[in-house]
């Protein structure tokens, strides 16, 4: 069994906003092992990015209330001093952001930004040493002519190149966990694949764990081993990538997969959607947050609207689901939905 590098228990995050309290993340737990890639999927506002931010305590300290435990390298990130968490950031956990365009500080050269990330955790490194590290990193992430390009500024790079630099910054300290928050959303499709390949190559090299946050099922399918599906701030399904695509176990997942239209459908102008709207995180529907949109709600009845379903292992396999349907129905409907 591989080493558990990140352990999340009962993570809940809420924000005070002028419109009311936003319950962004509710009672999320999972473990992550070295070398593993975990995908977190969900639509906008499902809480996946907030979850990612919490892992490094990046959320607004004034408005956010975070409870639970996030243990990295033996330190509870949520309950330690500012100095301790700073020691973990960039060193044990690193992050790659969605938009490489805005993730780099436009006022400093890329070399300086990589060097800075290294120097935070290697205060006594010599100037030459740092420069060598920077050049190595740039080479590693596939930037040609690193010696000259390190003096250039972010705007002089293409989107894909910038994302490579962000990855270089993230990996310069060889972290145990890399959080990739929608790392390819802002990139062209061809570049997307390159970046994903790069991340996986580097993962193999360093045996780091990756959390890949995305709303793109295709991306998840390509790289992740396990998947968390989030809805309304909760994990509604936890499954291996194969199980999710072959036998999804939550009505929301069925909707998601169903929404992936076939080419023929697109050509005929049909676009499948999940009926209804995503929940407001200020007033999450009672019981199962998905029940107002769930086509099985009427069959199951009032339990759905009154009782929050627990995440439980479905008897037929390893997938876990948070749904009030019984296991048999889940398995059979899940398969039929995929076969449609």
């Amino acid at each position, binding site marked *: 069994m591989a080493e558990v590098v990140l352990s999340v228990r009962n993570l809940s995050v809420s924000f005070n906003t002028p419109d009311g309290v936003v319950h962004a993340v509710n009672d999320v737990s999972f473990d992550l092992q070295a070398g593993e890639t975990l995908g977190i999927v969900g639509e906008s506002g499902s809480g996946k990015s907030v979850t990612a931010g919490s892992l490094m305590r990046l959320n607004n300290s004034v408005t956010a209330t975070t409870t639970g435990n996030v243990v990295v390298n033996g330190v509870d990130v949520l309950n330690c001093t500012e100095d301790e968490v700073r020691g973990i950031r960039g060193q044990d956990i690193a992050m790659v952001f969605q938009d490489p365009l805005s993730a*780099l500080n436009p006022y400093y050269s890329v070399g300086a930004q990589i060097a800075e990330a290294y120097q935070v955790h290697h205060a006594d490194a010599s100037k030459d040493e740092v420069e060598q590290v920077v050049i190595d990193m740039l080479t590693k992430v596939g930037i040609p002519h690193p010696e000259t390009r390190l003096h250039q500024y972010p705007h002089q790079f293409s989107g894909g190149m910038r994302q490579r630099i962000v990855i270089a910054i993230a990996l310069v300290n060889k972290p145990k966990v890399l959080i990739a928050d929608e790392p390819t959303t802002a990139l062209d499709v061809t570049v997307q694949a390159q970046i994903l390949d790069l991340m996986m190559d580097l993962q193999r090299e360093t045996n780091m764990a990756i959390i890949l946050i995305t709303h793109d099922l295709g991306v998840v399918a390509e790289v992740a081993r396990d998947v968390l599906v989030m809805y309304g701030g909760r994990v509604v399904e936890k499954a291996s990538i194969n199980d999710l695509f072959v036998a999804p176990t939550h009505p929301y997942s069925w909707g998601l997969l169903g929404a992936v239209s076939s080419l023929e459908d697109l050509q005929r102008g049909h676009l499948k959607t999940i009926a209804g709207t995503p929940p407001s995180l200020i007033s999450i529907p009672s019981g199962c947050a998905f029940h107002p949109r769930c086509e099985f709600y009427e069959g199951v009845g009032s339990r759905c609207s009154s009782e929050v379903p627990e995440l439980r292992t479905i008897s037929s396999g390893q997938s876990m689901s948070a749904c009030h349907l019984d296991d048999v129905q889940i398995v059979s409907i899940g398969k039929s939905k995929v076969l449609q």
Partner: protein
Amino acid sequence: MYLFIARRLFFAVLLLLAVSLVTYLLFSVLPVDPAALTCGKNCKPDLIAANRVRLGYDKPVLEQYWLFLKGIFVGRDYGMGQAAFSCPAPSLGYSFSQHQCVTTLIGKTFPVTAYLSLGAFVLWMLIGIGSGAVAALNKGKWQDRLANAFTAVGVSLPTFYVGLLVLFSVVIWLGILPFPHYASPFEDPIAFFQAMILPWLTLAVLSAASYTRLTRNGMLEAMNEDFVRLGVAKGLKRSVILRKYVLRSALVPIVTIAGLDFAALLGGAIITESVFTLPGMGKLSIRAVVESDLPVLVGTTMVAAVFIVLANVLVDILYGVLDPRVRTK
């Protein structure tokens, strides 16, 4: 970069030409007969007519403009005999109400305005950026609200009102300072500071307001930027992030506005100078308005425009220095 500067300077010169032409045309529509101002109470029509010819006010506006432009480069002579006088280049004209070349007048008053502007500028940047930063770091708290109220009042209260209140309170009521009495900083530095501190403060308090707002909003915006999050994610110290990431990016747009404001200040600290009786360019120009002293009006407008345009060029260059995106395009 040099090409960029050269290009900007070239356009600046074109712009100044345009400004001077527009200024000339604008003031030529004034229903004031400049010649009538040359001979005081016992002006008689024939005398006015003679003076008009003598000064070239009888010529078409465009020709007058040409003479004006020429005067800047080669100087200009006016009149003849006992009433003759000449202004060496760069001549901006001759003031009849003050019996001096406009260039001389501006040369005398400009340092005062420059000291006033410089001091106020430094103070207001310190106050504005400082309070803006405090407000941003305490968003929603009382510090923020206070800075906000200060901003609102600052941008809206007329300078003369605040200036006189400050003057009377500090000098008469509290008796902290003697009445301002301008002296050159090289002759009497103490008197200079005593005379300047109140106008500096007044201008600073009133003008800092918009910088408080700019800094606050700029910093708040920057704090939401991904690159700041990345900085945090790198494990950088809060102070480092605030300085290198947040403040740095909030300051770039401020440079633009600060440059223009500074130039505008040089061109017209009219009210402040009147309230605090500082013998600067603002006071010179307001006097010119009152006396319909056209040459001085045109002169001060031109000088003000030169500074505004120069400031524009400077701001552009500074922008390039501060923002690599502009520099390396």
